[in-house]
């Protein structure tokens, strides 16, 4: 009878089998349809990619910091790419390209959204699993496939893609243009197509789950801000990734079938190519129509995670809940209207440019609202400096520092000078790179006890935090000066230019800090895996005394999350320090004497 009654409710009916259905190793750990296991798969894959991507940055920073030195061990590691212990220019570009690709897509999109959307959405809205656990599993496995293809591209003879993570044609479209464009670029494009499928399957699921599977009483205005942020992230992804997909298809046609979507009047090594009528700028439009929302796909989850953690650990309601939701919405909308600010120097109509300047600078308004609300939430709070809290505050700090330089760059007049310099590198690394890594780390430290039933080591976490935040500023702050002085990005060796010789010492210093910061990340990785098996066991179901629903589930929740009924929700997610009580979880019914909610 039960199967008849529930067959309509996809995503829920698996739950009934949990007691009389033996899970094998394969179905539990590999092809799992449990959102919690899929989340951990995304997390671990993301961490592996972060180590690889980080290592690449260490290697190319060695070249930038010590252009005249040889490192014989590099040859052992990279073979002919570093013959004689010196990185080859071609491979330098490949490393920079792969560093960007890996960090932007594989770590901060799949690793961040994939982990926390999967983990938190069902647990925080009170659902047994995602709307479609099957699609959810496919989402991970498409990501895995994309990962394998991208990883394989590191080993092809001509090297991985090397045209920059933005893969602008004609460089990326012509095999003769650079070694990375021979077959490495095909790997890149196919991998990215798989990645887009993964991210769409994930996004569809997140949106549907949030909108149609909330538990009783969980109205949209009672949702934790993490869930709101993940909802907007998914909407951005679902609407912008398909446009990149179309751009990727056209590029694949140009590369392999002789079409001329992006190519026109090109001469390579004295040979005139037959392609005509194409436009390279067209690719930039298609790319940045995804590329700019992508920045917010990376940043919004970090904002949501930080909002949640800051409120919990300040023991105060989040300041301006509706303003937080509204500003997320505003950022999400504006994200689609500013892509051409990446293209101010392409010779676009100055009037069009000024429209994009206006829209770009408008993003400062919702961003400022968010920063104001984070600070006012902290203000006079009863702050607990847990590692998660420190990383959240670190996120706010970096978001402010990096956001301010965005105001410079959003201005087309200034951008003409700053475009493609280290100023841009400094800006986007601080505001979306390191800041979002901080959001991700904050989330890992905060939800680790829920994920694995154990705590991470705090001493190691504090060392990790302080070295990383100081290191991040020491690495990227000086780059602003280099950029203002005109030092262009993507050069292999700056020692040949008189204008940039004065930065030799600074570049060496930056590279030195990079090595230290990377080493400390390995400390985190050790802490993560060690604590998973040997960490202090969680004995309290709600260790952070938090209001949200995930902490009402057992310490080791099974597939289906709650053994009995799903808890009902009676209040918003942020009722801290109310009526003399330090916190009131969302599933506590409203008492007779209670004052109105915050």
């Amino acid at each position, binding site marked *: 009878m039960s199967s008849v009654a529930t067959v309509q409710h*996809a995503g829920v009916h698996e*739950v009934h089998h949990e007691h009389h259905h033996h899970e094998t190793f394969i179905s539990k750990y590999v092809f799992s349809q449990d959102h919690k296991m899929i989340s951990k798969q995304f997390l671990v894959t993301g961490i592996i990619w972060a180590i690889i991507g980080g290592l690449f940055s260490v290697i190319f920073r060695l070249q930038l910091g010590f252009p005249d030195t040889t490192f014989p061990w590099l040859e052992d590691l990279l073979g002919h790419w570093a013959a004689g212990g010196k990185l080859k220019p071609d491979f330098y570009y490949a490393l920079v390209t792969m560093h960007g690709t890996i960090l932007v897509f594989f770590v901060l999109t799949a690793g961040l959204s994939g982990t926390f959307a999967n983990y938190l959405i069902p647990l925080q809205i009170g659902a047994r699993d995602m709307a479609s656990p099957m699609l959810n599993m496919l989402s991970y496995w498409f990501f895995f496939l994309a990962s394998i293809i991208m990883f394989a591209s590191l080993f092809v003879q001509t090297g991985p893609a090397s045209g920059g993570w933005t893969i602008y044609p004609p460089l990326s479209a012509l095999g003769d243009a650079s070694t990375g464009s021979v077959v490495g670029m095909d790997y890149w494009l196919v991998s990215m197509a798989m990645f887009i499928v993964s991210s769409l399957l994930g996004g569809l699921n997140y949106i549907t789950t949030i909108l149609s599977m909330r538990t009783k009483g969980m109205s949209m205005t009672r949702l934790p801000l993490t869930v709101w942020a993940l909802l907007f992230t998914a909407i951005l992804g679902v609407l912008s990734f398909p446009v990149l997909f179309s751009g990727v298809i056209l590029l694949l046609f140009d590369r392999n079938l002789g079409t001329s979507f992006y190519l026109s009047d090109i001469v390579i090594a004295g040979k005139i190519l037959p392609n005509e009528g194409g436009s390279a700028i067209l690719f930039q439009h298609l790319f940045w129509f995804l590329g700019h929302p992508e920045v917010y796909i990376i940043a919004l989850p970090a904002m949501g995670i930080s909002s949640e953690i800051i409120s919990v650990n300040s023991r105060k309601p989040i300041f301006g809940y509706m303003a937080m939701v509204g500003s997320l919405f505003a950022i999400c909308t504006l994200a689609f209207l500013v892509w051409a600010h990446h293209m101010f120097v392409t010779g676009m109509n100055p009037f069009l440019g000024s429209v994009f300047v206006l829209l770009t600078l408008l993003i400062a308004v919702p961003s400022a609202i968010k920063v104001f609300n984070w600070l006012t939430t902290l203000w006079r709070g009863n702050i607990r400096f847990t590692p998660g809290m420190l990383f959240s505050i670190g996120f706010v700090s970096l978001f402010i520092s990096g956001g301010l330089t965005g105001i410079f760059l959003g201005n087309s007049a200034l951008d003409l000078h700053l475009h493609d310099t280290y100023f841009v590198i400094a800006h986007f690394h601080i505001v979306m790179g390191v800041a979002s890594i901080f959001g991700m780390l904050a989330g890992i430290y905060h939800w680790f006890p829920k994920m694995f039933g154990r705590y991470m080591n705090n001493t190691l976490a504090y060392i990790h935090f302080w070295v990383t935040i100081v290191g991040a500023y020491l690495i990227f702050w000086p780059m602003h000066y280099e950029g203002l002085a005109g030092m262009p990005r993507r050069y292999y060796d700056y020692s040949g230019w008189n204008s940039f010789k004065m930065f030799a010492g600074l570049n060496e210093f930056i590279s030195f800090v990079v090595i230290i910061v990377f080493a400390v990340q390995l400390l985190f990785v050790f802490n993560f895996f060690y604590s998973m098996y040997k960490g202090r066991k969680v004995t309290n179901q709600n260790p952070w005394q938090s209001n949200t629903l995930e902490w009402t589930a057992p310490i080791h929740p099974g597939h289906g999350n709650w053994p009995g009924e799903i808890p009902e929700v009676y209040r918003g997610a942020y009722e801290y320090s109310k009526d003399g009580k330090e916190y009131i979880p969302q599933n506590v019914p409203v008492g007779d004497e209670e004052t109105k909610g915050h």
Partner: protein
Amino acid sequence: MSAVAMEQRKKIHPHKFTLWVGIGSLLMMFAGLTSAYIVKRNLANWQTYDLPWFFWISTVAILLSSVTIYMAEKKFKQRDMKKYRGLLLVTVILGVLFITFQVLGFLQLWEKQVTLTANVSYSFMYVIVSLHAAHVLGGLIALIVLYAKAFGTKIRVYNSVPVELVSTYWHFVDVLWIYLLIFLILIR
């Protein structure tokens, strides 16, 4: 156990909702391509051509198939499995005809020197039309699976969700084709 089911309040089935969001996503992909087409058209060296008449026949086929799947869905809800199977089969055949006529249309164009690489406007047409055809092919696979399942000997539960999902998707590729056809005729 129905209490568990009752806990999940919903007006629209999650899978249907997922499909609609997915359709939105697919629309964005075609919007990307058609916008690129419009941008490119205003640049130099854009040649026009006449659409082959096979495309018109294929339009008739896919329009008819939308009608047949609509009727199939209705018959399924009336528990008339025999007619349901028949109508599904007709839909599959019409879908196969659509793809065949598209391919014949491509051949017709190719003979008139409208080849993939001869001009950007041709390239765009080939990419857009074949990408749409790929989506029709996906729908065809879903239809065939549905058709195979319709022969299940004992059907205890009449769950109309899979039928509705496939039907919605099929209408979508139909409407998408009409849009693309009008687009390719008007904007050239």
